[in-house]
């Protein structure tokens, strides 16, 4: 009787080599990457470890690299708050509100602007470079004039103030990211929509924006994460009544003690929304690749 394993392989096709030498040959890229991987991931590991360690273990010598003697005390401290600090959720909430609203605000202006310039050459060849020039100056250089402006307008320490300034600083990034997408997107689709009876506005809403969705998703992720991580403006133009997570974290370095375990715990909670947001947007990114209504 002949079983499948008895069937001879065609001559010339060798059995897949599994020798040590062969494995070494195929895994060498991993060997090269390994040190970089350790370099990049170790701090993440260390933060996670610190977040779950009792204070006494954080400073122990010699250093223990393995997760032993874990506790939820640090998490509990930042989660429920203390006399000195409100619960971490308050700050996460503030960051979330400002991040989402400012991102939406910046997308509304940035995307429509990129579409207008990319499709209709509004503003001539000068406008794109002009919009980018907002980014030539680091935000910190403008902080004093902005502070005075905000004080005059009553925007200091308000949601509106931070949302406005984050939105404005994000527009150039969104504009330039999207401009490439708009110019690469086939004009035929919108022209077909005009012929089908759509106005410029409807063609943009119904046809262009869905086609640009992957680009918009990328712009949204970058913008949101940028705003989420911003510290200087949040600290200088707000930070008392309206305090974001980035303003909260350094508060844990008190005059009495540096609460490393608590900082690590709060940091851990602070990166979660960013990861979650990027995961949602992933859907749009992947969907973009499946398009193909032309040809």
């Amino acid at each position: 009787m002949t079983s499948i394993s008895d069937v001879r392989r065609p001559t010339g096709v060798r059995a897949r080599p599994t020798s040590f030498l062969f494995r070494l040959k195929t895994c060498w890229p991993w060997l090269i990457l390994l040190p970089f991987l350790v370099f990049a991931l170790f701090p993440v590991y260390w933060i996670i470890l610190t977040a779950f360690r009792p204070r006494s273990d954080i400073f122990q010598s010699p250093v223990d690299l393995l997760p032993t003697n874990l506790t939820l005390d640090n998490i509990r401290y930042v989660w429920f708050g203390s006399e000195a600090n409100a619960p971490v959720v308050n700050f996460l909430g503030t960051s979330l509100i400002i991040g989402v609203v400012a991102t939406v605000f910046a997308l509304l202006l940035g995307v429509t602007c990129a579409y207008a310039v990319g499709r209709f050459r509004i503003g001539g060849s000068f406008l794109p470079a002009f919009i980018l020039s907002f980014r030539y100056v680091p935000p910190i250089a403008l902080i004093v004039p902005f502070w005075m402006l905000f004080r005059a307008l009553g925007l200091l320490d308000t949601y509106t103030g931070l949302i406005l300034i984050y939105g404005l600083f994000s527009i150039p990034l969104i504009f330039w990211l999207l401009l490439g997408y708009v110019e690469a997107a086939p004009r035929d689709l919108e022209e077909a929509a005009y012929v089908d009876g759509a106005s410029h506005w409807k063609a943009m809403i119904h046809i262009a924006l869905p086609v640009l969705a992957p680009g918009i998703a990328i712009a949204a992720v970058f913008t949101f994460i940028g705003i989420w991580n911003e510290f200087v403006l949040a600290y200088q133009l707000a930070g008392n009544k309206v305090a974001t997570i980035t303003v909260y974290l350094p508060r844990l370095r008190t005059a009495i003690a540096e609460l490393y375990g608590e900082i690590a715990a709060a940091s851990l909670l602070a990166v979660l929304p960013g990861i979650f947001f990027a995961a949602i947007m992933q859907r749009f990114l992947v969907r973009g690749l499946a398009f193909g209504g032309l040809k």
Partner: protein
Amino acid sequence: MSSIEFRNIRKSFGAVEALGGIDLEIPDGAFCVFLGPSGCGKTTLMRVLAGLEMQTSGDVVVAGAVVNEATPSERGVGMVFQSYALYPHMNVRENLRFPLKMSDQTKDVSDRRIDEVARILQVEHLLDRRPSQLSGGQKQRVAIGRTIALDRSVFLFDEPLSNLDADLRVEMRLELQRLHKRLKSTMVYVTHDQIEAMALADMIVIMRGGVIEQVGTPDALYSTPDNLFVATFLGSPKMNVLKATVVEASGGSARFRLSSGDEITVRRDVRTRAGQEVSLCIRPEDLSVAPDDIALPLDVEMTEFLGPNGYAYGTSGADKLTIQLVRRNGRFDLPQGKVHASTDAIHIFGEDGTRLVDRVHAPKGEVA
């Protein structure tokens, strides 16, 4: 009624003039093909008609009304794009629904219309698919379907078959003809493929360099081209062009010296004088091995046998010459040093490309 008229249409893109004064009338219900080499302005002219491009000057008239300022949909014009331009994020049903939605049709009316269009174009089984899941021919049908979903009096096709393979192209060509019969609308079709143009059109507009070279029925253009460009552009293989010098021209007859040194006499009224350089043009199928009015020398270099007919390629003096071979009793007669043509089959063009002999008989069904 939806006749179309272009009145002295000019269009410039910066310093480049794409259309240099187009005057053209397309009667209601015609199947009109804009034909020309790439960059001749045919697509620009169609886009001006569609309202996607604004002419620099001149008027576009649809159904008797000047529509210069009207949007594409206000002109009652539908268009099928070369790329099909199906909306990638919508399935076929939603694609077909889009124009209906834009014209504020109720859902009931839209649904009925979508079913009807899907039946006409045989895409009923594809309604729930995305464009990326369709083959080229299916995309083409959906694109046409979306265009006919609304009642329109003029349909524009911008090289709609150029992305299909050869078999499918022939099939869709027939389908377009069927559609034209059924809808009875005016159709304007842009292509650089002369076979497509000849097969579909009842009126061909040949363009070059932003101007119209000739307008007429396929037969008229083929049998009596107005100028050398039209003569050599239509027909495959190309019309033979022999450079010649006029030796003598008098009423009813002219004598020419060919580049081979041979002299031939054409017993026709030729508007020329002695010493002028002219082009004598004869289609490959008008040449034969059997003796006729005019004899031309031919050195055969290559032959091709293609079943019912074949071609012999060679030179006549300094000029290339191609003759179509006809199969007779199962074999081809090969030319032996000379080929022959009838006087009626010869076209003569001057140095500037204009026609120098009158047409022998006007072809039937002339449009222009």
